[in-house]
């Protein structure tokens, strides 16, 4: 009965400031959802805007393997040079992979 599908998990660590912009970018690629954690971090670039801006964010999204590298590249092109942002992809297995392939297919509310 086990019918897992392989999907990609996209993880982005970014300064709080870019939250809206990155979510907008993700939505342009029709992701079906995302999960955000508040994190702290240290990187090669040192400090961020200010504490008042809040800590870093880690944004995770399960996405279909097709578009994955493309999203990664857009994030890289758009943000890597000027902002404290890193991103990576990994393989994950989910049940009912269909849920993550197309946008908003199962609005139940």
């Amino acid at each position, binding site marked *: 009965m086990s019918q897992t599908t392989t999907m990609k998990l996209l993880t982005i660590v970014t300064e709080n*400031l870019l939250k809206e912009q990155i979510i907008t970018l993700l939505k342009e690629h029709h992701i079906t959802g995302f999960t955000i954690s508040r994190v702290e971090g240290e990187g090669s670039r040192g400090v961020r805007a200010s504490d*008042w801006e809040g*800590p870093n964010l880690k944004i995770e999204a399960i996405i279909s393997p097709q578009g994955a590298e493309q999203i990664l590249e857009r994030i890289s092109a758009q943000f890597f040079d000027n902002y404290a942002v890193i991103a990576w992809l990994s393989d994950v297995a989910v049940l009912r992979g269909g849920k993550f392939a197309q946008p908003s297919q199962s609005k139940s509310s």
Partner: protein
Amino acid sequence: MDLVIQNLISPVVLAFLLGIIARAVRSDLEIPSAIYQALSIYLLFAIGLKGGVSLSQTPPSELLGPIALTLALGVITPLSAFLLLNKFGRLDQVNAAACAAHYGSVSAVTFVAALEAVKIAGMPASGYLPALVAILEIPGIIIGLLLARQSKPGGLKTALHEVITGKSIFLMMGGLAIGWACGAEKIATVAPFFIAPFKGVLCLFLLELGMVAASRIRDLKTAGWRLIVAGCLLPTIHGSVATIAATMVGMNAGGSAVFGAMVGSASYIAAPAAVRIALPKASPGIYLTLSLGVTFPFNLAIGIPLFLKIAQHFS
């Protein structure tokens, strides 16, 4: 001198020092991020509320002079800061502009510390000053961004939106409006939360700010002596000029000193966010170190008593 020491031995200043010491001795003390944000929200909203109540009690005519002066200085100070930092401080255009936005804007905590100091010195400031803080926040940042002349397409507009809807200005303006609409009597019902404990909350906030500033102070080495000197000169010049000008438009001595501290201060709450958005190439390691690591402690220790002296002299 006595005034300086009187000013320094206060719960608020010592809490800032304690924060610096915490980092110096590598204490594991830390204020959780959520608490820091709550303290900031509280302080900004409370400053606004108090200002709004005073505003509701001030005849508009009395405000014209101070508002005009505030706008004028909001345009001039970023320009002078840019020049000094670019020529003398040897910062490139982008970084000088980024710093200019900070020096054109206001540090709310310096403002509050100055309010305290004049009250202790027995020369209370007029109540409408918080309204001027809100007014001064915005032009400085705009001029600063314009000076960079290379913000991203749409960068200025996004940054402006960021400044005006940004939580700092939004909370202060919101508090101001509520305080003004409700008036003294209705605000009295929330005074035991927003007014009475204010200074104590500020104390905790400065404990955290001291810890943040400590890491900035550590960065001073890389900043170079020219920047450090500039970080002391700018508040001295801006603050003195503003204090004198304030006495001329008719503010009382206490108010003039606080106004001087306001204009002399450099923002480290509203400006950094806007600059980060519009001028991502500018280095926070420079503008935050200058505003929080140099100018803020300088004003706490030297600037505020100096402006008080000047205000007393010219009033």
